[in-house]
């Protein structure tokens, strides 16, 4: 097991290095000129060239990349004279568009995305899995039809549409909830809950639909297995039989959950945008439209890292959930 984890961690590091290289390389191929973007309105070719130098973009891409990697381990100094400042390790760069260190931006924004993703995940599991189990237990009956029908509706809604509908109804029309904004739970937990309930619901309803269907399918498939038939033949109570079935059906659920949660942790772009949540997803989108290379690289690496680690955790959990799985 220890060897397996070490090998996977090593592969994660290699992948992150490759991803960072590809991001750098792709960015250098884009037609957008970051030096022109930070040039200001009194822009002249001379100022653009000065900016290129200031941003380090006058260096060959491999040199820029090396400076970036060095910054992660030993930090970097930006600017000169009395305006110089340190970006301490792990320095993922400095956004001249935002006047912020990328590491700080990510650290500030990650908790918002995590709160959104984890809250939504708890809700969708709480809704989707029981609904799927119920539907499977009552296959073909009205409960099954209702659950699968509703799940299809929920899954079909685009999240931005659902988000807008919830805001227009519960905030603007009825005035039951405050206007979208972000308040940290440490600042005012009550307001935090009031502000997060709609984004959580928006994400959860979408995913709950999928998880209802997935759970139902897995349960039905497992309940048709030979060992379940054997268990029933031996006279085990149906409750115990279903518990066996659920456990075996959990593996694909776990896979989907790991990937979905990691994807959301890497940035729930639409929910963050519609609900004015300053998370990683919105940061990524804004940095792309601003051609803010340091932030793009930082968010891509953070997202990739999260997904890779989540995959590792899921793989490790397989062994716990399903004793038949052996990690070597």
């Amino acid at each position: 097991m220890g060897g397996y984890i070490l090998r996977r961690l090593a592969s994660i590091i290699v992948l992150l290095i490759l991803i960072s290289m590809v991001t750098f390389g792709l960015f250098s191929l884009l037609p957008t000129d970051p030096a022109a973007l930070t040039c200001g309105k009194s822009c002249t070719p001379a100022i653009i060239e000065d900016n290129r130098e200031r941003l380090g973009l006058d260096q060959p891409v491999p040199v820029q990349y090396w400076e970036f990697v060095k910054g992660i381990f030993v930090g970097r100094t930006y600017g000169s004279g009395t305006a110089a400042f340190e970006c301490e390790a792990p320095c993922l760069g400095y956004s001249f568009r935002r006047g912020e260190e990328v590491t700080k931006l990510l650290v500030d924004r990650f908790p918002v995305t995590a709160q959104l993703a984890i809250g939504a995940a708890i809700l969708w599991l709480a809704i989707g899995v029981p609904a799927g189990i119920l539907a499977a237990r009552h296959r073909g009956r009205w409960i099954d039809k209702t659950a699968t029908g509703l799940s299809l509706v929920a899954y079909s809604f685009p999240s931005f549409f659902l988000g807008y509908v919830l805001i227009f109804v519960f905030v603007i029309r009825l005035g039951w909830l405050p206007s979208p904004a972000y308040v940290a739970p440490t600042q005012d937990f009550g307001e935090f809950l009031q502000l997060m309930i709609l984004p959580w619901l928006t994400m959860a309803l979408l995913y709950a639909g999928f998880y209802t269907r997935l759970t139902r399918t897995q349960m039905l498939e497992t309940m048709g297995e030979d060992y379940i038939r054997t268990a029933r033949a031996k006279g085990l109570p149906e409750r115990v039989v279903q518990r066996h079935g659920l456990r075996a059906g959990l593996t694909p659920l776990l896979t989907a959950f790991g990937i979905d949660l990691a994807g959301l942790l890497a940035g729930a772009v639409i929910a963050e945008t519609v609900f004015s949540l300053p998370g990683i997803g919105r940061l990524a989108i804004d940095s792309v439209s601003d051609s803010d290379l340091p932030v793009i690289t930082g968010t891509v690496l953070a997202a990739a890292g999260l997904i890779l680690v989540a995959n590792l955790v899921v793989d490790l959990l397989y062994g716990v959930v399903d004793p038949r799985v052996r990690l070597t």
Partner: protein
Amino acid sequence: MRRPTLGWRAAGLVAAGALVLTACGGGGTTDEPGQEPEEGAAGEPVTGGTLKLLSQQEQILHLDPQRNYTGEDLALASAYLSRTLTQYPYTTDVEEANTPVADLATDTGTPNDDATEWQFTLKDGVRWEDGSDVTCEDVKYGVSRTFATDVITDGPTYAISMLDIPTDDEGSSQYKGPYTGEGQELYDEAVTCDGNTITFRLNRSVPDFNYTVTLQSFAPVKESEDTGEQYDDRVFSNGPYQIEDYTPGQQLILVRNEEYDPETDDIRGSYPDRIEYTFAVDPNVLDQRMQADAAEDQTAITPDSVLTASLATVFNDPQFEDRRYNEFDPYVRYIAINTSKVPNVLHRRAILAAADRAAILQLAGGEFAGDPADGTIKPNIGQDYAPTGLWEELLGQEIPLEGDPEYAKQLIEESGEPMPRLTYDYATSPDADRGAVALQEALARADIQVRLNPIEAGSYYGVVLNENQQNELSLAGWGPDWPNASTIIPELFGTQGGFNLSRYNNPEFEERVAEALAEQDRAAQAALWQELNAFTMEEALVLPTRFGREQRLHGSKVGGAYIWSPYGSWPYGQLYVME
């Protein structure tokens, strides 16, 4: 300045460009250029309460005074945080609003005989938020930061172009700003302090320098509080408010600056106790919230425009009558004609004659997008504007809004030369794409072939400002930095202008511009600008497409609101919250 920001967020996010001269005020739907503004939706100002600002933008583009160069941001910063030597008063009277009055200074400055030297004396009793006095040295230091072009980006560079400091062979100033100190002695000669009196020595006559110093780039900065690049996040205030919290992407909270003495300030009302600016509000949600005017949004105001999809509702429903505005925005939109590639004036006139301006305007949004333009000076600037007669006579005959392709063909024939093949550079967007096709089709009717060259919005100006990359036609927009065409005509058509996309180089014209710039009689100067505006149109240096407009809403309990002419913004310094 300056040109409108391009890109998907352009609508209300970052209207790059400072001065913005908006003719009409007051809630209403039928504002016409030159119409006197009505009173805002206001009674007697009320002190106290919390004013809310909502915006789809992620943050204030720049709060650092020397980097602040966006109309709305300039208006906000000058009202709340950062006073300047002179500033514009809050009034709905356009002419009065466009005339600077003393702010940090005791008066609007004293020039020498040829306006190459200006003196301002600072008032006593103006203090920073730590209680220390705002001194002449603080103003001098603040202005010096503009020269640090490696740190202080995005701001106006008038200090560099106007102060009498020598340049090197490449045309860059020999003073490199306070962070390196290189060339400091040169700056110390150009800007001097004698007690509370600051003197600016200029490299040319600038009769309207007291307008120039209304810009935040001439605001003081306390050296001990300067954090260079990062000063943007925590501006040290000398205005009526100070920053309690600034989290880009979330909020800016302003609270009263206890050291501020209203006795030193004849301009600002500073009525609310607290100002809460919420960023990154989704555009659709923001639009709906402003229309719904629910309890918590009644004290809210937004600098963002009403979404296009909502315009018909907002401007047809009487419930919005007292809180809607349809005003000129800061900009003239135009298509620059590169004279180095289209040197024949008859060819340029043919382009103007053939263009279907009605289609271009319609595709940009119709009546809400703006009014047909006849030059690069907009009516809301005041005395510098006069109709140029471009579409009535300057092209040789009257040209209808739909264009006159037959007359365009005639002009080409008269030129005796074939029309060069044209390429049209424009920053791509759905509206611009459609407009480009309309231009292409209209010119084709006059047998003028146009190739379209859509350019990604973020790099657009970087490309077209490069002489080697710019083609024959380039889409552009421009707003003046202060209410004087000295920030339009020389910038757009002078060889020293920063935005001469027409690549115009005419020594005789340069002399006339220099004469206008040096003219100290304002009325005489206005007459010269009017002549030069007409001349540039006669030369067909640009195809002016529209005098832009924008539409806004505010909450029903916000008082003192109107579109303030100097920055085309809300009059932040006199907004209040009604009971």
